[in-house]
């Protein structure tokens, strides 16, 4: 399948999964995985991120409108899409250009760390924007980490099945 078409299929699938399923399940009575962020983590990096940011904004707004959550998911999607570029700028060789980094080609270990950092960040932002209280985010650190771990399990599993470079 055309990579662009495959990407949009993944994006739509994850957005629908988040609003139809993940926002309604309560694993162990409490945890709702945050998986909608995955398509933004695998977006190709580019020098000008404007189109990626607009895509993240539209996708986050879709979840917010359907879930009646104001702009919580919009802010999270835009934040993650922008800051991941900063993450790769700090990691890359000084001679390497940002658009030369291929997320598919980074090692599995680095990929899991990358996913975990941004999924954790997403959970922190969602908890914070929901409560507007740093104290509450700190008091809920265990729940945030457990929710991030559950989310990453699903994301890594999907990544291995559908985006494993060895399969292509």
């Amino acid at each position, binding site marked *: 399948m055309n990579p662009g078409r495959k990407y949009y299929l993944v994006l739509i699938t994850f957005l629908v999964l988040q609003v139809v399923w993940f926002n309604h399940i309560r694993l162990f009575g409490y945890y709702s995985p945050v998986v909608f962020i995955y398509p933004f983590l695998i977006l190709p990096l580019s020098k000008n991120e404007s189109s990626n*940011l607009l895509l993240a904004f539209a996708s986050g707004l879709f979840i917010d*409108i359907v879930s009646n959550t104001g702009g919580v998911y919009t802010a999270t999607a835009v934040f993650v899409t922008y800051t991941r570029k900063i993450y790769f700028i700090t990691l890359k060789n000084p001679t390497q250009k940002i658009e030369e980094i291929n997320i598919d080609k980074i090692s599995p270990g680095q990929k899991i760390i990358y996913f975990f950092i941004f999924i954790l960040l997403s959970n922190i932002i969602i908890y914070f924007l929901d409560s507007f209280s740093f104290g509450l985010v700190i008091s809920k650190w265990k729940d945030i980490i457990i929710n991030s771990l559950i989310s990453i399990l699903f994301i890594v599993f999907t990544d291995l099945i559908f985006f494993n470079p060895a399969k292509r």
Partner: protein
Amino acid sequence: MIKLLRYLSGRQSFLLFVLLEIIALILTIKAHDYALTKTHSLQTAISGNFNRTIYGVRQHFSLKSYNESLIKQNALLLKLLQMSKIDTALIPPTLPEQYHFIPAFVISNQYNLQHNTLLINKGYNDGVQPDSGVISTNGIVGVVQKTSPHFSKVISILNKNLKVNVALKQTNYSGFLQWPGKDPNTFEVVDLPVDAPVKKGDTIVTGGMSGIFPKNIPVGYITGYQLVTGRKSYKVSVKSFSNMTALGPVYIVKNRLKTEMDSLLKP
């Protein structure tokens, strides 16, 4: 000026990022502000239509449990009817026809956030108004925040901004029920006077003072309590009767005399 424009044009992505984040934050803050958003809402209408489709599929699989819940409710009503014939003290202290109940279904229910809301499939076309209470067969659910023609957004009792007037069933001492933000079935009652006789296992019911909920709707039972020394009051832990993670049929409580009550309470 030209230098500034040149500098900014090189940071197009950053400027767009800031702009989009500001828009998202404004949307979030607006959604948080209960006082400003007690109106009809376009977002409620869109969200309601989408969730109604999902709800249709879910409802098919939940019919058995809803039926069981309605059978239990019928049994309880029959029992109350029998009791009211012999004990008039059990009749709630409200005027005849003061409260009207509009049946509805929960089509979307949040309980993993700190400021949870839910959507129900009745709106202002059905006579639902903001500030109406919502109850289930097992207890209170929340308060209507805003309405669209066919849907209403309800502030769940699992929302840290919501405080509901409740009382000890036996003695009528009252306080405020609030959600501490963790377990969806555990609440706390604050500002309960220090001279109130508090016991584990005692039932907490609605106090009925706000006019949002009728008096004596069961809320939960006491699992523990502690004295708040500075405030000379009790803080009581309550296990709720209703399961907020599995809501189906609910009733919107319409107080026909609320406007009259509120007009007298205004300073």
